[in-house]
């Protein structure tokens, strides 16, 4: 059983398209995150949700919109994709009360052409 699963693993799309990445965790955690890893492998937080409520929203273009239908899912929708959006996107989850380590998905490699 995969603890944090993301789909798709690879996504190649043209500029201007709209795409979504899905994330699900079966750990019973109540906090979920989206991180972006750029071409230099730097990891930067984008969003965090706690029990379906947005609690962290970094300086991210409003073309990026997270959606949390329930506390086990956090999806990322991206409108009007640009070349600079090409990156690896990681979903992660954490138990808010224990507040220790985060568990990561395998990543989604997005390539915008």
């Amino acid at each position: 059983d995969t603890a944090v699963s993301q789909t798709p693993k690879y996504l190649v799309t043209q500029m201007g398209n709209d795409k979504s990445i899905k994330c699900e965790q079966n750990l019973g955690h109540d906090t979920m995150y989206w991180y972006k890893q750029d071409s230099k492998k730097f990891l930067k937080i984008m969003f965090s949700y706690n029990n379906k409520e947005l609690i962290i929203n970094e300086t991210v273009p409003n073309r990026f919109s997270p959606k949390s239908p329930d506390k086990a899912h956090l999806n990322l929708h991206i409108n009007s994709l640009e070349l600079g959006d090409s990156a690896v996107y990681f979903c992660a989850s954490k138990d808010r009360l224990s507040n220790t380590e985060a568990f990561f998905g395998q990543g989604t490699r997005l390539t915008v052409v």
Partner: protein
Amino acid sequence: AQSVTQLDSQVPVFEEAPVELRCNYSSSVSVYLFWYVQYPNQGLQLLLKYLSGSTLVKGINGFEAEFNKSQTSFHLRKPSVHISDTAEYFCAVSARETSGSRLTFGEGTQLTVNP
């Protein structure tokens, strides 16, 4: 706010040699400390963590790290590396008292183990 500095972007070593990957952090509040490993085309896997107690923590795959509060460091060590340890290693911190707090990562250290 927290920040993390990994002092070496690349560390090449020979197989069976010891290795140390350096990490320093800055924070105005108490933090938890972590090392994650990322193998090529994979996600992040937790190597070890410091929450409290003994400052020397042991992790998976023979790695260990020592928390030094006065030097605000959390260096990762392994006495004898294998080819399979070739990967990107990330040091990270999160605020201790803030529930659900984010992880702040360093820029990563690419460890390359050569035969």
